[in-house]
Every structure is written in C-alpha cells, then in structure tokens.
C-alpha cells in the first residue's frame, strides 16, 4: 500500500496518534473534505487496522464486514482446518449472541483471509457490531459448536473423497503457492487433521491471528455515518461530508514485484472423463486495481461467451490473492478431454493478446461501458459493497470510488495493466488421449 498510495491518493496524510498511525484519504475531491496537509487531523480507527463506512439513505439493511488477514495458511502443520473451524465456531457464537434478532451471519475462510459478514436491519447494526467484536476477540467459544462444525465438514469431505477435481484444485494451488507452502493446502484441512483440532487450538489461533489492529472493518448500507464513527471510535466523524469515508492505521508493506517471473507448464495424466486447466498470470503489484479488473473483464468476455463455446463445461476467471501479497489472474476451466489442447491454446492466446494491447478509443469506450455496468451491478448490494470496500482498504489503504475510476480508464492505463501480466503457470489435468502428452507427477 505504501507504494501505491502516493501515486493515487494525493490527500493521504499519515500521523501518529496514541501509538497508532492513521490516515484520512479523499477518494473523490468533489465529495470528500480534504485534510489540510499542514495540520493533519487523522481520524482514529477504534483500534482496527482500518475501517470504512459506505452509508446510503436508500438502503434497507446494513452489512457489517470484518476481514482478517489470516486463513488456512496459518494453520499449524498437523492441525489443518483450524482456521476453518475457528471461523465457523465464531460465527456460531455471533449467531447465539444475536439470538432474538433477524441478522444473518456468514463466514468464509480462505487461504490468506477470513471474512465475516453480518446483514442486519438498520436498527440492529450496533448490537450486531458488539456481538461480532466480542466473539472475534474475547468471547468464550462453545466446544459443542466446534464438534458440530467438525462433524459437518467431515461429512462433506467424505462425500468429496476421490473426486478428481479435488486433486486438480490441490495441484493448481500448489502451482501458485509452492509445493510445500501451507497456503497451497485446502484451507478446510483434511478429515484426519480436523480430528486433531481442539478447543485449545482454536484459542491459540485466535490469540495469534485475530488482532484488531490487523483487521479491517466496514459497514455499508443503512447506517448513519456519524453513529458508526461514534460507535467504532468513540468520537464523531472527523470529516463531515465524506462518502465513503474511512481511516487506516498502518500501511501494509507491499511486495516489490510479481510473484514469479518465469512461466511453467505441468501436465498431469489421469484416467478421468473430464479435463481441467488452470492458467495463472502474475500481476505486477504496482499496477492500479481498477485497470487490472478491466483486463479480467476483457478476458471473461472473450472466453466466457453465451452460449458457451464447444467443449467447455465450466469456467472461472478471477483475481486470486497470492501468499506473497500480490495477485494473479487465474483462469480455471473444466472441458471435454479432447478439447484440452484447444482450450489451453485459446486461454493463453486470449490473455497474451491483452498484454500490451492499445485499444482503439471506440473499442475502449465500448468495453469500458460494459465493464462499468457489470462491475457496478456486482457492487449493488450492501454486502458486496462492504466486502469490496474492506478488501480495498486491506490492499490499498483506501476505498475506491468505482464509478469515477471506471470513467477514468484510458488506453494507457489499460495497456499498462495488460502489460503487467507475467508469464503463466499452467496446469493441465486429464487423460492422455493422444499418448505421450506428459507424465504423472510422482
């Protein structure tokens, strides 16, 4: 973030406040009070690493989001699934604390992140905030919840056992994070490792990795921004007109360069009836986020056509956070075995075409318009906006003003984003119909 902010946010000011470093950032000069550079008045963050508010008078619910920069990658070696079980046990505790309300509580435990979200009625967001905060950092966790969540997950795993797609996913993440990296494991652990996890393990994980100062909190939707500021920080909002407004404690250090600079191709031959492809392109972390998202949109629009192209079962294209702190553009496809070769070529050629492509102004306007519609509609619920804001804060230390940033996309920024894609790491898993296409991984 320290690398990105000076370029993007002219109004970023950092100052020490009671042992914290806080920042006030103006995402849109027309809508936000800028802090005078001479006498910065950084807002407190209430102990959070960062917090943000996206308040809308027209919303009918409020979405609370907490993102913790810890997930399955931080599990102890023989206790895979600890983060997953902790996440679900904490969620259970929040649900119990909110018994008597209509709030909806969800948790998603990933490899490097854990995301909690609570959807509440406008009147109930403060009790929901208190319940979430308590369960995350202090409250007692019920060991019966741990047992129930473990049994539930093990039942799912028993159902999935032996599915070739699971091997594909494991190998695909190993290609991104490394064979030995804890990040590359399934964040849910294994049925055996789940059995090892005790209530004490959850407590240990929580004490080590659930820290307010490392977490990001956002609230989006029907919540009054001043009330949020008072509830979270104990003080009125520093900036009266900012929307969204946010504060950041300490900038995270960003990686110096892309995750890898040399491509790789792995071919795994298996006697299965489908084929899978994963192609991951590292993104230079110095590249601004919105143009990179535009590139992802362009790749999607070329590869994920409607109706689907022949031979394609399913496809996912996303920006995948990597253990190194930067991202990769990842294309995952399930295809007919005899279409493996053609789809691999198509994926690589399409993405290669984006690299360095300077769009004609007419094409740029056309694609930008489509991107704007798709991206803004994705962001149109409080929970989606709140999560996006939290991830923005965690990654860049600011919440993007998406409509303005999309409007500002020009040929140069898009070309730069395309050129920031590095050489791919490709994994192909499927039968060898022609013979001699590759060898099994030992």
């Amino acid at each position: 973030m320290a690398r990105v902010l000076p370029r993007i946010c002219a109004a970023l000011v950092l100052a020490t406040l009671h042992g914290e470093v806080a920042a006030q950032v103006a995402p849109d000069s027309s809508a936000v009070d800028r802090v005078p550079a001479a006498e910065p008045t950084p807002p407190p963050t209430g102990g959070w690493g960062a917090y943000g508010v996206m308040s809308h008078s027209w919303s009918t619910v409020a979405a609370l989001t907490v993102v913790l920069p810890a997930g399955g990658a931080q599990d102890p070696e023989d206790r895979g699934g600890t983060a997953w079980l902790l996440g679900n046990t904490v969620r259970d505790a929040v649900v119990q604390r909110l018994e008597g309300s209509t709030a909806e509580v969800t948790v998603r435990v990933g490899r490097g992140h854990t995301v909690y979200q609570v959807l509440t009625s406008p009147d109930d967001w403060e009790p929901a905030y208190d319940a979430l905060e308590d369960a995350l950092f202090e409250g007692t966790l019920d060991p019966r919840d741990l047992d129930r969540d473990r049994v539930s997950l093990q039942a799912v795993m028993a159902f999935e056992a032996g599915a070739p797609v699971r091997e594909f996913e494991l190998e695909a993440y190993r290609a991104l994070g490394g064979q030995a990296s804890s990040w590359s494991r399934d964040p849910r652990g294994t049925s055996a490792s789940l059995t090892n996890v005790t209530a004490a393990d959850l407590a240990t994980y929580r004490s080590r990795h659930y820290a307010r100062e490392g977490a990001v909190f956002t609230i989006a939707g029907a919540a009054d921004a001043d009330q949020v500021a008072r509830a979270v920080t104990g003080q009125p909002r520093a900036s009266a007109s900012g929307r969204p407004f946010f504060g950041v404690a300490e900038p995270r250090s960003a990686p110096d360069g892309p995750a890898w600079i040399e491509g790789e191709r792995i071919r795994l031959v298996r006697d299965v009836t489908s084929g899978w492809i994963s192609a991951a392109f590292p993104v230079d972390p110095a590249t601004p986020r919105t143009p990179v998202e535009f590139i992802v949109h362009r790749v999607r629009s070329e590869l994920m056509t409607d109706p689907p192209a022949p031979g394609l079962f399913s496809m996912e294209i996303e920006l995948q956070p990597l253990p190194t702190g930067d991202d990769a553009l990842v294309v995952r496809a399930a295809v007919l075995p005899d279409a493996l070769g053609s789809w691999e070529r198509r994926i690589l050629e399409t993405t290669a075409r984006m690299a360095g492509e300077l769009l004609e102004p007419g094409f740029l306007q056309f694609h930008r318009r489509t991107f704007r519609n798709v991206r803004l509609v994705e962001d149109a619920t409080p929970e989606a906006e709140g999560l996006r804001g939290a991830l923005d804060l965690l990654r860049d230390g600011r919440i993007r003003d998406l409509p303005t940033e999309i409007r500002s996309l020009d040929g140069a920024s898009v070309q730069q984003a395309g050129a920031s894609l590095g050489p791919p790491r490709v994994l192909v898993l499927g039968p060898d119909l022609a013979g001699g296409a590759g060898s099994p991984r030992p």
Partner: protein
Amino acid sequence: MTHRPRGRNGFAGLCLILTSFGGTLSAQETDPRPADALTPDTVLTPQLGPRIVRLPTPGAPVVSMRLFIPLREGPAEAGAGEVLESLGTESARAVATQVGASVEGARTPWGIAYTVTGAASDADFLAFVLRSAVQDPFDRRVDFVQALAALEADVQRLQETPGGRIAARLREQAAPSTPPLGGTRGSLGRMTLADVRALWSRTHQADRMTLVVAGDVPLEILLSAFQSIGAPAMGTVFGPSEAAVSQPSRPAPQVIRHWYGEARVVVDASDPRTEVSALLVSRALQASNGRYEAEVQVWQLPEAKVLAVIGAAYTRNRQEMIRRVQGAISETIAGLDESSVRDAVSRIRSDLLMGARSPAGRAALVGLRMEADGNATGARELITALDSVTAESVRDFLQAQAGTNPLLAEVRP
C-alpha cells in the same frame, strides 16, 4: 421461509412457502430509513404513459427500472402471458448483454414485469432494453415454440406430482374464474403465436404500463426514453374471451403417500396478518415432530390471497396427519402470545427489507405492491402495517379463518 415470485413450476402467483426456520426472532421498532427508501419521491402519470414512479436514490451509481404491464387471460389463452414474458425477456437480454446490464422477467398475478439493472449513466440505454422487451413478437416463431414447449413440460410436471396436483385442486376451488398463470394442457395445446400477439396487442399499451425506477435518473430522460413504447393505443380495450376450453384427461400422478390439504381465501390481500399467521401456523406444525410432512403456503391471486396447509403421510400415519392439518389453525391460536407474534412480525419485515437491499429488489417490492392495488406507497404501508400486528389481531384473524369452511383436496395412493 422463501418468498418466491411465480416460477415455472408454480401456479398461483406469488407463493410463500413456510416449512422450516432457523433461530428465533424478536420485534423491532419501525425504522423511518427503510420505510423512506420505499416511498417514491416522484409519481408522474403522462397522458400517453407509462406511469412513472421514482424511488429516492441520490447519487447511486446503479439504477433498476421495472416496467409492469397488467394483463388478464381468458381460459382459452391461459399461459399466453407467460409465453409473452419469456419472449420479452429473451429480447431484452439480447440487447442488455451488449452493455453488460442484467435483465429479469416475471409473470406476476397481475401481469408481466421486466426489470433491467445497470449503471445510472446508461439510463437511456436501459430504457431501450425495456422497449425491446415489450415490442411486437411477430417474428418470434422459433422462440415461441421453445417457450411453449417449456411451459407444457412444467404443466405436465405439476400434474404428475401429488404435491402439484393437490395444490392445483385447491387453487381451482379458490379461484375458479382465474386460469392458472402457467396455462392448462388444453389452452397450451391449442396456443399459436397469433394468440400471443393478440394478447400483446390488447395489453401492451404505454398508458396501461407502470415504470418503477430505483435510481438517480432525471425525469426528463425517463419521459423521453419511454415515449411511444409498446403497442399502438386502442380506442376501446376489450377484455379476454371467457370462452371455456376443453381439457384433455389428466395423467395420474405416482402417489405413495396420502396427501391432504385445506385452503382458505383471504379477501383482503393487503392484510399483513396473512403472512404472519402463515409463519406462526408453520411453526406450530414444525414443533409437533409428527411422522408426516406438512407445510403452509400463501398464494397470491389477483384479487385475494390463499392460506393453504398441506400434509403428506404414509397410510399408518394418515389420520394423525389429517388431524394436524385440520387443527393447525386452532392449535396456533391456542399457542399465541405476544412474543411469538413479535418474532414472526420481525421475520416477515426482515425478509421484505433483505429482499429490497438491491436496486432491483427495491423496485420489485414497490412494484409488486403497486400491481396489487395501484398504490405507489403500498410497500411502505406494508412495513408500517406490520407494526400494528399484535397477538390479539392475529387471534382475530385466525379465528375468522377457522370460522370459514375450508376448501379441501385429497390425493390418495
């Protein structure tokens, strides 16, 4: 609990099915913010239509526009509205894809609604998308055949399942003059594209339409974008033919268990106690742990709602199941208290507000209430009316229902 707009496998309009619930609930105070979010800041009725209802959304980058076309079918054309909606949705989606906007179509108890969602800065193009949805389907023969085949398959599927069969029987008794929205085997078997075009010509005049806008779009853009939309204006609008259509014999469903259902028509369709009561009855049934399956459904018809309780059991538990279905309302009355009613009210309100958290959801909530009675503030009034629901008022409501003779249906193995 799920609120479901009438889908291809439904038959009676909006359908609220209550089977199982997680957690307990509590009451909440009325909040002016969500209510205000559901109150239009503008209602305009241009002489040539459509009526424009705009919800306050200052500065929102996304807009949803929901265009509603009222229509009523005669028995011989039952299902034509559903076919028309399918064709319109496909047309609109083909256009919307060009700019990345999203489109949804729905056949509601009162007509057809198309919703487009996209960037507010593309409002004029989004209006064009809706124009595409309501254009004359004269050249859609292939799409018509596909849509008709899908609808026929749905109708047959309903008739081949005991759950679908018993619900259809109850609905026929509740609204004998209103054909099923999804059509009948008789009407669909004879339907032609000309029939669908005739329905379009009769119903798709701009001055009959209503546009609900959840977004920050200037009125002048809305007024200009929706000029001369739909079919040419007609001097006199005739209703549908009431001529009956012969129905082929129904296929016999494969039935293993006994199915028994009771339904009661609630005349005041805007009474929120219907949904609150349905939830309470469902909970009462759920608490019993009987060796049978039972569920509560609320069906929205054009002029009324239907509260139905349907059970299924193997032969040895048949009597127990029927007793529970017959006594469900009385049992609920006996267990009523303020706490349980507050919980139910809170859940219903929460579901409404959660459904309205996106621009399209907000337009749908306001639009559906308008379709029912033309009231642009109906959604807000519904939220407000929930606050006046008490244990006493629910008891009155349920006692009135218990005092009526229920419609009955049974399907046996």
